[in-house]
């Protein structure tokens, strides 16, 4: 089981800020393919992958990164702090 978190407009499109997902996905990209199939909201949230960022256990990563051992995956748009 992996804890999946959503922030900003991903959260709004998906309609929740977190969900527990049972998955055998090997990489972030594999997980995204599974999540996209969950609902229209998910599909919309993940539609434009160039505007997505991912963090694995609170460290920035990329879509090719392996998920082995990862407990928390977060998806969000480019950050706008400061």
């Amino acid at each position, binding site marked *: 089981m992996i804890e999946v*978190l959503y*922030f*900003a*407009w991903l*959260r709004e499109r998906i309609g929740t800020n977190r969900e527990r997902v049972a998955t055998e996905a090997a990489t972030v990209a594999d997980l995204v393919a599974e999540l996209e199939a969950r609902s229209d909201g998910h599909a919309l949230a993940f539609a434009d992958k160039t505007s997505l960022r991912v*963090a694995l256990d*609170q*460290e*920035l990563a990329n879509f090719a990164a392996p998920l082995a051992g990862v407990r928390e995956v*977060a998806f*969000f*748009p*480019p*950050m*706008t*702090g*400061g």
Partner: protein
Amino acid sequence: MRLSVQEAAFDLGQEANRFSNDIKGAGAIVTFTGVVRDNGGQLTAMEIEHYPGMTEKAISEIMEEAVARWDLADALVIHRYGVLRAGEPIMMVATAAPHRGDAFAAAEFLMDYLKSRAPFWKKEISAAGADWVAAQESDEAALTRW
């Protein structure tokens, strides 16, 4: 070194004095404060979302890198989340160093990394509606200079 991720408002002057009193004889103190712009009176409020846990981790790493790269006596980062009104301070960075070049460079470095690497997302709320602030390409590009 102090980091505070907080919902509460803060006072620029108080924080600047507190920071400056803590460092003795550093010579050069730089502060940067980000303030909610009112966009010509259009903006009602700004809402800032963040990723608790990762926020503190990401900013701490950025601060450690600044301390490793420049000769600093001290550094401070305060960043708010939640609902902010126009004119309120959003965040603040302060650096103290023996020489001004280090204090300026470290403050700009911290700002550039906070903009694009700390997990905050801003939403602007106006009479016309609410919009997530889009990331600026120039903010991402700013990282290449370090």
